[in-house]
């Protein structure tokens, strides 16, 4: 038995363990499931108040870290629609995030070129719409490309958006835009609910938005739309010949992904109170993809876990100074060697990767 066989057998066992956990979970009665989920949710909402000793971040404010983590989760859920469900490798997702953030800044800051600050509740839909439009503009011509080519084009898009921000005076060039409107709401004592110092309300806001987005994404997944994405991912030509309007559904995946990315960017901008191009570097885009792939692209729980790890670990180990990214990078490499399908893989994705190793399904040649 070679080392590779051993590794493969071990991997098979791990898949089996995850599979059996899944079956056990499937057998829990709905009421029990609901109870467990509610308890878990309450715990997650209370995290910044409990401030648990090992989880908490000694070098930075725990609520702020939690906000950043939750934002990362939201981004990963959106990117998962594009990569995990429709199978389109988008390396420039940061571009949509930036479009959302800058839309929030331009429409929500009195210091922007518009010189009028629209209310937060008006800015959010504008940011989502503009991100969606940018997704359609990018996707229209490029979704005819496949695989690697699409990855290259999207990579370029992410950089183009950042460079436009750097070089455009209307967008504040390198200085960025300050004074962005915050979400509405007041505390009992008349102070604003969403202040500068306390990150907890922002965390709770993003958490709630995540729950809504998850519901929507799950609805899409279990419908004609989700089936079409899956069929496109598995065999695009066969899908088209079975009546799937492949281009239209790929464009939808892109637009939905962009909308969620734009929403995340807008939330980020309104929490920060300012934006500048520094926040939208390529490395962040790569981290977004890492979160999706690491967790198990196509599986919502996996993707959420991946996003939590990718955004939380560097904060937790801030004490290592500049070595923290080295440790983080090494952890990613190790993980990908031993678990290429992600931490909690999508059932189908795991099989697709295994198939790539063993050869294709039996078929008759010409």
């Amino acid at each position, binding site marked *: 038995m070679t080392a590779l066989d051993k590794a493969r057998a071990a991997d098979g066992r791990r898949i089996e363990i995850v599979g059996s956990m899944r079956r056990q979970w499937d057998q829990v009665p709905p009421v029990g499931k609901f109870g467990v989920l509610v308890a878990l949710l309450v715990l997650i909402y209370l995290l910044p108040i409990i401030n648990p000793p090992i989880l908490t971040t000694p070098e930075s404010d725990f609520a702020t870290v939690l906000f950043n983590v939750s934002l990362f989760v939201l981004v990963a859920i959106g990117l998962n629609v594009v990569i995990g469900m429709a199978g389109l490798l988008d390396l420039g997702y940061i571009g949509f995030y930036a479009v959302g953030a800058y839309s929030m800044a331009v429409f929500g800051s009195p210091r922007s070129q518009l010189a009028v600050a629209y209310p937060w509740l008006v800015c959010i839909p504008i940011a989502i719409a503009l991100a969606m439009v940018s997704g359609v503009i990018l996707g229209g011509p490029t979704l005819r490309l496949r695989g690697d080519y699409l990855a290259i084009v999207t990579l370029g898009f992410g950089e183009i958006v950042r460079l436009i921000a750097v070089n455009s005076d209307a967008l504040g060039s390198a200085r960025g835009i300050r004074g962005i409107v915050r979400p509405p709401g007041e505390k009992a004592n008349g102070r604003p609910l969403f202040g500068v110092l306390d990150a907890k309300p922002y965390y709770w806001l993003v958490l709630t938005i995540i729950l809504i987005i998850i519901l929507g994404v799950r609805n899409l997944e279990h419908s004609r739309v989700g*089936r079409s994405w899956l069929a496109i991912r598995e065999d695009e030509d066969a899908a088209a010949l079975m009546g799937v309007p492949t281009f239209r559904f790929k464009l939808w995946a892109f637009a939905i992904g962009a909308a969620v990315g734009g929403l995340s960017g807008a939330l980020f901008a309104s929490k920060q109170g300012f934006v500048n191009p520094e926040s939208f570097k390529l490395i962040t885009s790569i981290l977004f993809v890492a979160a999706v792939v690491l967790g198990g692209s196509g599986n919502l729980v996996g993707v959420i876990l991946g996003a939590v790890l990718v955004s939380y670990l560097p904060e937790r180990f801030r004490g290592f100074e500049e070595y923290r990214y080295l440790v983080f990078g090494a952890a990613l490499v190790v993980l990908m060697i031993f678990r290429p399908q992600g931490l909690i893989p999508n059932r189908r994705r795991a099989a697709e990767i295994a198939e790539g190793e063993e050869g294709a399904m039996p078929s008759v040649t010409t």
Partner: protein
Amino acid sequence: MSPPEGTLSDPSDLGRAAVGTDPTPLLEVDDVTLRFGGVTALDGVSFAIHKGEILGLIGPNGAGKTTCFNVMTGVYQPTSGQVRFNGRRLGRLKRYQITKLGIARTFQNIRLFPEMTALENVLVGTDARHRTSVVGALFRLPGHWREERDGREKALELLHFMGIDRRAEEVARNLPYGDQRRLEIARALATGPTLLCLDEPAAGFNPAEKADLLALIRRIRDRGYTILLIEHDMRLVMGVTERIVVLEFGRKIAEGTPAEVRDNPAVVAAYLGVPEDAA
């Protein structure tokens, strides 16, 4: 195994009522030529398929049979000539639009969605006739529920018709070879076609399985579908088709009833004389 007739009461199948009475052919391949650079894959091929018939398309390897399918289903655009379906030019229609018009196909090399279950594979086919898009699915509008329910019913009925309903929840790649072939036919039928194109559906089958398939193809025709059959196995073609078109090197060399084609010297020379194809 066979369910009661007429259970597929899909409005898109209405064209089937006019079996044999309609003078305009269902599908016309009109002087189609297809060139790839210097290679002429199809050279002025013309033939017609009439409603309700089973037409065989045969020829030695590389004769252009599958290429002909690909032109009919929009995979390739003909260099010259045209394909008409129900009198309508296919022209530059997209592949999914041609499927919606009523042409469905299977593949010589099985091309199921391997990680989807058998049922899901067929559901993708039924989706060809569905309208629910992102908004309907996102907000679970009534149309979404209705289409999901109807699609599921139709898909299960088709799986039952093909005799693979026990495997509905199994992932396609795990199905036995013969069931994969049957699933492909079920998926094609799910798109609600009038014309079903089968590309060597018996490839790799043993004689008993071939006999089953023969009966199945007849039953599909009896449900009112028109069938175009590419097949290597001469006995199968002769046994099930009413007319046969023979291709060789991208040209049509003969057309007629099985008996006529069998006695045509050009066909004998081109095709039947080759031992491995005589099966």
